[in-house]
């Protein structure tokens, strides 16, 4: 790299550092504010006294959540959904990605299958037909509606296909000479080599299933089956009225229990905050490798 020691260049660096640090702080400040509100006294929070530090520091809202069976019920549904959904996605993504990474010579009709895959990614029947289909399969109020309700994560499958295609052909040839079959080849050779891209798509699956609220809202008619995000959506952001005045909106925000809501929001963030740093170092690598096509 080029060395720069002029005064102008140093000033440039300084401005840059200040700007970038400022932008980074802006990205986490709202999250920090939520934590501060959740640890504050409710009266102080609703009257807008809390800024960056809790006012009247206490753990009351977290204690209250500890005794809230509804919250824990939906939390547990979300955990089940993430475990089932991500494992299933993981298996399906590999089982689709590996054969489709082969040439049409090894997998007849490969191009037709790819075409179907891309078509289903780009075109869909829309909300009502989708809802009617899931309903006719008898999955309303069933956890499997949340796990299966949306289609195969085709974007992830394509990332994996491209990753497999970029692996050296010699690997497969050597394994073939040693007498490896297709399943052995996939499990013993290809999967271990695809760790970065598999970690990436798994992160996407986990985050998707944890964050998704709409399937819960539409496919669960009973609030006891709501996953956590749907539960929070109903609690915090719903404005369920066809006519509403500005005063009503203002009043609603004042009446709600802000510290409790903030605590629930913060707890719902924790799983993402915990897994994110571990998988973060993989995903940039995984995305850029998977999206490059020679």
């Amino acid at each position, binding site marked *: 790299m*080029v060395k720069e020691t002029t005064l102008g260049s140093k000033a440039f*660096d300084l401005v*840059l*550092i200040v700007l*970038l*640090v400022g*932008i980074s702080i802006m*990205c986490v400040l709202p999250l920090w*504010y*939520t934590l501060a509100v959740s640890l504050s006294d409710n009266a102080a929070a*609703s009257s*807008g006294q*809390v800024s960056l530090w809790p006012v009247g520091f206490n753990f009351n809202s977290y204690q209250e959540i500890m005794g809230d069976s509804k919250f824990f019920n939906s939390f547990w549904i979300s955990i089940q959904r993430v475990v089932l959904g991500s494992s299933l996605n993981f298996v*399906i993504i590999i089982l689709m990605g590996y*054969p489709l990474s082969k040439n049409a010579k*090894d*997998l007849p009709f490969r191009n037709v299958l790819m075409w179907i895959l891309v078509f*289903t990614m780009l*075109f*869909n*029947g*829309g*909300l*009502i*037909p989708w809802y*009617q*289909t899931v309903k006719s*399969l008898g999955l309303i109020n069933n956890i499997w509606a949340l796990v299966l*309700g*949306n*289609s195969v994560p085709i974007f992830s*499958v*394509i990332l994996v*296909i491209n990753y497999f295609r970029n692996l050296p052909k010699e690997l497969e*040839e050597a394994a*073939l000479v040693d007498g490896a079959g*297709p399943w052995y080849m996939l499990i013993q050779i290809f999967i271990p080599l695809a760790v970065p891209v598999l970690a990436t798509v798994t992160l996407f699956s986990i985050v998707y299933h944890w*964050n998704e*609220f*709409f399937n819960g809202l*539409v496919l669960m008619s009973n609030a006891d089956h709501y996953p956590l*995000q749907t539960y929070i959506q109903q609690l*915090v*952001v719903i*404005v369920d009225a*066809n*006519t509403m005045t*500005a005063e009503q*909106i203002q009043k609603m925000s*004042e009446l709600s229990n802000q510290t409790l*809501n*903030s605590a629930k929001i913060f707890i*719902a*963030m924790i799983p993402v905050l915990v897994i*994110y*740093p571990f998988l*973060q170092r993989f995903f*940039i690598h995984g*995305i850029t490798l998977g999206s490059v*096509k020679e």
Partner: protein
Amino acid sequence: MVTKGFAKHYYLMLLPGFIWLTLFSIVPMFGIVIAFQDFNPGLGMFHSDWVGLENFRYMFTLNDSKTVFVNTLFIAVMKIIANMIVPLVFALMLNELRIAILKRWVQTIVYLPHFLSWVILSGILLDVLSYKGPVNGILGIFGISPTLFFAKAELFPFIIVGSDVWKEFGFNTIIFLAALTGINPSLYEAAAIDGASRWQRLWHVTLPGIITTVILLSVLSLGNVLNAGFDQIFNLYNPLVYSSGDIIDTWVYRTGLLNLQYGLATAMGLLKSVISFVLITTSYFLAAKFANYRIF
């Protein structure tokens, strides 16, 4: 090579995925016939009455449909433009940063909001922008009286675009950073020896180096002009801002699942799907032709 007999194993591997696809993607596609019916859930789509294009005709007579179409286009186009420019500028800034450890920290932090849901972020945003919230508090210092941000239709699209940029700019930076690492470092050396300043190097080496990525992303974003972001708007809007914030997807949800006008909602959804599909296909065609880009 002895790959004979492998194909049937490959098909076996593909089977579960394609069954899943069939059940939840392909079968619902046939459900678009509802758009041409007076759909009655009790009768199902095999026995409901056919009404031809009546749903479409009715849709075009509604004032709502013009509003939601304009809102969708306006919000989506603003998002596309802002989500291109901000990450590009940010990536260029990050690329000029010469302290490696700070660079890593900044990257880790700015990617984070992308992984939080709009439910969570809406909860936070509604609080931050509330009447007695911190934003009004800061504005108060400058003598600006408090505003009910979420009751102002004229502000709503800008809140939507602004908060979307806030959530996604870090993540959208990744692709530009990847393109930047592809630039040959010797170009910078050569430019420096020729006496180019940092600005000149940015202008004559860095920008030309990533312009193809920028063009490619602009072309591909064409497919998104009818996607204004359901999750975000659904969680932030209220009846006071329908006039500027109601988009096709939220309208379809309310009309179809809340007001039970299945045929009408499906017709609108179908129109959106078809237009989007044409736009995406066109943009991929253009990308393949001019940037030699293929997704698989």
